[in-house]
């Protein structure tokens, strides 16, 4: 018994030491404060910060704003630029500290709210390690800081109001895997943040439940006055039928929100392409540009240019195959390992690229297949270990591809091609709406309709300089009797 106890004691001691050894750095706790205080009053809280490392650490402590965009991405705007910031009402003491190995200290902070406060304010307190040796650095060096953010939400006591609205609900079909894609727009109209929970349910024509998915599985926050877009996919291998997609959102209010959308799958008409491009008059046209380490596809005058970085290339040959139309290029001496197996393009009648190790012995041969929607003109050339294929679009007037120039304003170019039985003859009207990330309609874009061999081609443009953000283009095609097709496209404008 005595020996057993001794062994257990040493076992626990070793376990304790190894656990300590593993956690050798900075720790903060708690990580989030949700404080309610009477406006005009203040509250003091404390954060525990601990150096679990084996060396002394200097830690810088400061407050920062944060915000979440419509897709939930976190950013830290400059101080003084954000409405709803707690920074003017937050004091942290001290602003830096030195922690000996394994040492722990409590950092106090005080928050208050103005007397007329009606809404929740938020901010973040950062604890950032300061790397030593920067003052003596030479050559090319990289210094690393670990920064931990403690979030502080402060709301006026007794005045919390939770209110939300589903401002839009978009639906489109995905023919590749016979599923439906949705985008749900949620607006927080209350004065405090919430973390919505909910489900999206798919029901068939008889009302039977086909599938269900969680709306916000990561429990992401929607800040007061902000809006969020939740996107997802539902159903798989759907059979032709009429479907209803129902979203139910619990945001913590008195009643849940509900949104519903109906769709017939598959639609009578099918979209071959629905694309948009930001355009700036007078600026260099950048167009399509896709790249991996070994393959790149870029828009060029009148078509596309495919570049292959083929390390080890000794010789090459190429030939055409039909049904489906494709160009095959065999590159001798090249290993397939650094190439993606498939590389979708979906532009200028090029569906995409596929690669495989056609032969491994006695000499390696990499095979690249370029799949076309229809036969294209091309030219293959070699420069050292680089092979370039220039593809000229045979029917570039049908593909559109945003070649049309804008007037004097920057804006967006749209084009789409759709097919369906007698589609051009049955077509009554088209509708292209541009919406912002709140789901509000910014404009309706008139579309030019042209009959092409496979169906119809639609083109339009909106000459408008838009700020950075997320936008949606919602397309609908109607016959006289019914809706033939609806879809949407997400557009991101970067600053």
């Amino acid at each position, binding site marked *: *018994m*005595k020996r057993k*106890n001794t062994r257990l*004691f040493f076992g*626990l*001691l070793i376990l*304790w030491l190894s656990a*300590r*050894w593993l*956690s*050798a*750095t*900075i*720790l*903060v*706790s*708690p*990580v*989030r404060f949700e404080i309610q205080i009477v406006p005009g009053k203040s509250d003091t809280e404390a954060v525990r910060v601990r*150096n*679990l*490392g*084996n*060396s002394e650490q200097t830690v810088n402590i400061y407050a920062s704003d*944060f915000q*979440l965009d419509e897709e*939930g*991405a*976190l*950013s*830290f705007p400059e101080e003084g630029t954000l409405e709803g910031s707690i920074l003017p009402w937050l004091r942290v003491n001290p602003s830096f500290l030195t922690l000996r190995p394994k040492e722990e200290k409590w950092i106090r902070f005080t928050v208050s709210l103005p007397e007329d406060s009606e809404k929740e304010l938020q901010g*973040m307190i950062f604890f950032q*390690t*300061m*790397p*030593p*040796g920067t003052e003596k*650095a030479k*050559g*090319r*060096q*990289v*210094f*690393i*800081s*670990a*920064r*931990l*953010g*403690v*979030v502080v939400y402060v709301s006026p006591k007794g005045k919390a109001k939770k209110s939300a609205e589903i401002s839009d609900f978009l639906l489109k079909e995905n023919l590749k895997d016979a599923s439906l894609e949705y985008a749900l727009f949620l607006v927080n109209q209350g004065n405090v943040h919430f973390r919505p929970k909910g489900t999206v349910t798919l029901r068939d024509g008889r009302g039977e439940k086909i599938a269900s998915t969680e709306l916000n599985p*990561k*429990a*992401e*926050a929607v800040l007061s006055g902000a809006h969020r877009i939740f996107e997802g996919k539902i159903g798989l291998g759907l059979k032709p039928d009429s479907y209803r997609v129902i979203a139910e959102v619990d945001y913590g209010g008195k009643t849940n929100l509900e949104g519903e959308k109906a769709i017939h799958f598959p639609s009578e008409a099918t979209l071959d392409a629905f694309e948009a491009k930001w355009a700036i008059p007078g600026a260099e046209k950048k167009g399509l540009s896709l790249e*991996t*380490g070994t393959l790149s596809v870029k828009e060029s005058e009148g078509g596309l240019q495919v570049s292959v*970085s083929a390390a080890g290339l000794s010789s090459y040959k190429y030939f055409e195959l039909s049904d489906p139309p494709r160009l095959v290029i065999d590159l001798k001496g090249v290993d397939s390992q650094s190439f993606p197996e498939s590389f979708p393009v979906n532009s200028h009648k090029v569906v995409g690229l596929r690669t495989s190790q056609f032969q491994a012995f006695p000499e390696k041969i990499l095979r690249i297949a370029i799949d076309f929607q229809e036969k294209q003109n091309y030219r293959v050339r070699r420069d*050292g270990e*680089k092979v370039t294929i220039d593809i000229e679009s045979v029917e570039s007037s049908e593909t559109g591809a945003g070649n049309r120039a804008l007037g004097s304003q920057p804006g967006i170019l749209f084009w789409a091609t759709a097919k369906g039985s007698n589609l051009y003859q049955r077509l009554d009207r088209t509708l292209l709406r541009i919406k912002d990330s709140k789901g509000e309609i910014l404009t309706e874009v008139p579309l030019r309709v042209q009959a092409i061999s496979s169906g119809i081609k639609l083109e339009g443009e909106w000459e408008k300089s838009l700020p950075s953000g997320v936008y949606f283009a919602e397309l609908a095609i109607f016959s006289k009797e019914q809706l033939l097709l609806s879809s949407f496209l997400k557009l991101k404008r970067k600053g």
Partner: protein
Amino acid sequence: MEFKQGRLFFLALIFFLGASIHPQEPSLTLVIDGPDPDNDYTSMEAIHMGEVDCWGSPGASGDLVGIYGKPVGASSLYDKACRGVLYEFLSATGGNNEFSHPTSILAVYVVSSLKYELSVMAQLNGDASVGLDQLFYKEDSQTEYIPFTNHPQTLVSRGTPGASYFFYDFGLQVEFGDKPGHYFWNLTYTLTSY
């Protein structure tokens, strides 16, 4: 004696639990470990890349091994499109664990009781003749390098609570137009749970 040892055991147990566990208190832990040879985490790391040149020389001073330079924008240094050399540091894949990461520059260890967000942002100090985006990173198992930026780039969005390890490789692009000098990138890895 037996009683004393029993008490000692009990005290050790309390000490162990008290020192390591804070029940019901959400916490965040972030450990960044550079390519130092000590097989241990330290929170203050520096990466010395040495006197790399723009000609893809295989050898270099500094603290790093496993440096490989390849042309930027061209298939060889003699291609007129070549702008310089991208040096890959410890770019092989795999073979990493929480104590040792011989095939990646950085090991990032996260412990969080709640869902978390991990991001990185960079700042360039020193002579101003190079760009901040000449330093790249990639997740160890990936092939694509991503340039660092002066705004946060999300590495993990709403990560699963618990302990997680992440390994990153670096690439440094040295261009023909670069002037000799001292360049220091300050990388800030931010962990938060909002």
